[in-house]
Structure formats: structure tokens, C-alpha cells
């Protein structure tokens, strides 16, 4: 039966693959995590959306998600190259592997989700960061960071301080 042979072949292929790559699972088809660690720089697109991402007139960045990214880069041991800009430009660049993450107070219901992927919502079951589709190792790393480090109380406190409306795009 050809189907049985195919199955056996597929299983063997997978086992070799698993053995060869057992140091990390899941892996990135486009090696985003490896690339970030190798170059020592995280490429982050920032889309202005207070209080998540605040861009001052003199191009200084602050906000809840900017701070989160700074902590994430510290955890990875890399520096950050910021790309302040529009959502359209940044998300398009993300799709082309020219950014590693794009932040801007995005919600998981964002219509761009057909083209890019969103992390697990880290706040209020809807706020997430955008990453390139299918880069699952990098996504796991980012989500693990968000799940372990985001203190909802801290975000709530920040939101009260800025007394801004919880915006989203």
C-alpha cells in the first residue's frame, strides 16, 4: 500500500528532523530568533498610540509597550533598533522580515492578522504585539516573556497615571 510507505517515510523524516533540531522546539522557518541573537539587535517598529507607545516631538520613545520591549531586549541580551512610523509601513516591513516586532497598542482583532501574527494577548485579553507569521520560536520567546513579566496591576497603575483612554487600533 503506497499510503503506508508514505507514512513510514514521513515518520522517519520527522524523527531525523526532531533529532537534528532537538535543542529548540518549535523552530522558526526564517530563523528570526537566531538572527536577533546573532546580530545582537532587535528591530522594533513603533506606532504611536498612547499610552502604549508614546513618541515625543524630539523622537524619544516611552509608553507601556516600549518599556516592555526594553525589558524583553534586556532578557535576550540584545540592543534595540527602533523604527518609529505608521502601522502600515511597519507591519508591511514586518511581513518582509525587516522588523522582528511591531508595537502600537494593537489588539488581536486587528484586520492585519491575515498578513502578520499577533502574540497571545498579554493584557485585558486583547492587547498584543505583532510578529512575523510562522516564526514560532521567536513568538514562544516573546510570549513566555510577556506571560512571565507583565503584571496587570502595573499596567493598570500606568493607565490610571496617564489617565488616558485605553486605545487600540
Amino acid at each position, binding site marked *: 500500500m503506497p499510503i503506508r510507505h508514505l507514512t513510514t517515510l514521513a515518520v522517519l523524516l520527522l524523527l531525523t528532523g526532531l533529532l537534528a533540531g532537538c535543542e529548540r522546539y518549535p523552530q522558526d*522557518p526564517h530563523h528570526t530568533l537566531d538572527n536577533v541573537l546573532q546580530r545582537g539587535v532587535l528591530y522594533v517598529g513603533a506606532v504611536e498610540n498612547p499610552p502604549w507607545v508614546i513618541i515625543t516631538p524630539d523622537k524619544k520613545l516611552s509608553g507601556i509597550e516600549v518599556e516592555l520591549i526594553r525589558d524583553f531586549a534586556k532578557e535576550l541580551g540584545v540592543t534595540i533598533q527602533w523604527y518609529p512610523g505608521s502601522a502600515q509601513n511597519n507591519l508591511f516591513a514586518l511581513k518582509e522580515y525587516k522588523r522582528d516586532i511591531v508595537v502600537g497598542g494593537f489588539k488581536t482583532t486587528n484586520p492585519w492578522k491575515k498578513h502578520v*501574527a499577533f502574540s497571545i494577548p498579554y493584557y485585558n485579553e486583547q492587547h498584543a504585539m505583532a*510578529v512575523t507569521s510562522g516564526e*514560532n520560536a521567536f513568538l514562544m520567546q516573546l510570549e513566555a516573556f510577556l506571560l512571565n513579566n507583565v503584571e496587570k496591576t502595573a499596567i493598570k497603575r500606568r493607565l490610571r497615571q496617564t489617565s488616558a483612554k485605553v486605545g487600540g487600533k
Partner: protein
Amino acid sequence: MKVRCQYELPQDKQKLLKKAKTLEWWTIFFLLTITVVMYFALGSSQAMKTAWIEDVLSMIPPIVFLIAMHFSGKPPTEQFPYGHHRTMMLSFMVAAVAVLVVGLYLLYGAIATLLKGHHPTLNHISLFGWYVWSGWVMIAALIYSVIPPFILGRMKLPLAKDLHEKTLHADAAMNKADWMTGGAAVLGILGIGLGWWWADAAAAAFISLSVIKDGFTNTKRAMVDLMDSRPTDAASDKPLDLAQRIREKLLGFPDVEDAAARLREDGHVISGEVFVVLNTDKPIAARLETLAEQATAIDWRLYSLTIMPVESIER
């Protein structure tokens, strides 16, 4: 003789039929739990979605079987003098065509995903407060999804053969083969984990091909049955030699010079016409009725055979 006689399943077969019905109810129950479990594990994996639709589709044959069983046993009426046995074939035909169309649609989806080069993203998923890679949850759901159908399929296959139930057989065969599609989806997800983005869509294409195969074979079978093809075995699809056996039995009587039968399947019963050349001086009406009874007694599936005296049989 009664013009519209009711078919009675033999006692031992009635027990088997009851068992088959119970197993079909269990099949529906497990498939419902499977589709619910799979639904919650469903992520952006094309293979997972395809496997889920396949599981939803595999609920059709047991439902068709149970509904048709309800109607096909009804006695013949003035409006339906040949009884209701064909409900089974008719509903089976409709279900098979539906499965075929969905299979083609799924194949289109898989190929489109492959051509677009879509990279499936699998997030963390919250499982009772724990966060794990959703791929693991999908694999667990898929493993659960193949076990009950595999067991039930194996239990139903012999029943289908003994009951001469082709719908039941097609259903059992689909259940039994379900592990291959579940396994393909597992491989697709393991492949995603290895960074092989195409593995997912490739697995989806494999699963949709299996759905198409089910749809195609069952459509073909239903068409052949509706065309009144010669009776075949429910499991092996090999021709049953019932016409030959009727001929041989009738030729064993001294007053029968020649005999031939023309048979067709009506769901799980077989009926048709028997032609005989008689050489007797006695009144033939009573004799023909006896011969019809004798012929019908050859096999439990034979029912409502019409016997017809003729001058000669041309071959």
C-alpha cells in the same frame, strides 16, 4: 400471496442490527466530543482545520444510517408498493456527493495555502491555567480524535458484512481509516515545530485527498446500486452468486426444465424476477408459489421474488 409483503429480518440478524444501531449512536456521541475538543484546540493550522471538517463529515454516515433504518423498515404502502428499502441508497447518495464536494473544497484550500506560502503561527494556549505551545494541545486533541473511531470502526466492519449493510460498511471503513488523516495532521503540526511551514498545508492536502477518496468511492457505489447492479457482497464488493444458486436449486426439481433469475439490491434486501420453464400437467399457480418460496429460502436477504412461467429462456 400478498402483493405488498413485509420483509422480516431473521432473529439472529435482528440482534446484530440492534448492536449496529447502538454502535452508531456511540459513534455519533464520540464524534461530537471529538469535534468539540478539536474545536477548542483549533489554531491557524490548515491541517487541523481540515481534520476537524473531516471529523464533522464523518458524522454523516452514522446519521444517514440511523435515519434510513427508521424509514427503510416500514412496510410497503399503496403509494410505495415496493417498500422503503431504497431510502438508504438515496440518502447515502446525497451524503456521498456532499462529502465529495467538501473534499474538493478542502483540497483547494490546502493548495491555495501552499501556493500563497502562508506560514502557520502557533501561539501559546492557556490550558487550565498553564501556558503551553498550542501545537502540543492540537496533537493531544488529534490523538484523542483517532482512538474511538478506530475501535468503533473495527467493531462495525464485521457487523456490516453479516447484515449486508453497505452504508454501515462505508462508515466503518471511513472510521477505521481515520487514524491516517489524524496521523497526517499530527505530522503536519510536528513539521511546523521543525520550522517546515509547508508541512501543515501538505498534511491538509493529504487529508482532503482522503475525504475526496471517501466521497468518490461512496458516490460511485451509490450510483451503481441505484442503477440496479447485480447484488454484491457488502464488504468485498464481489458479486454474490445468488442468481446461479436459484437456478441450480430450481433445476433440481423434476418438473423444472429451465430457470433463470434477475436480481437487484434494495438496500440490504435482494429481490427480483425468476423465470421458469415448467413441464407439468398439474395446475401451475400453486406450483409456482411453492417454487418462489423455495427460491426465497436460499438466502436470508432474498425477499419478494416474482416467479414467472415462460415457454423458453433465450441466452
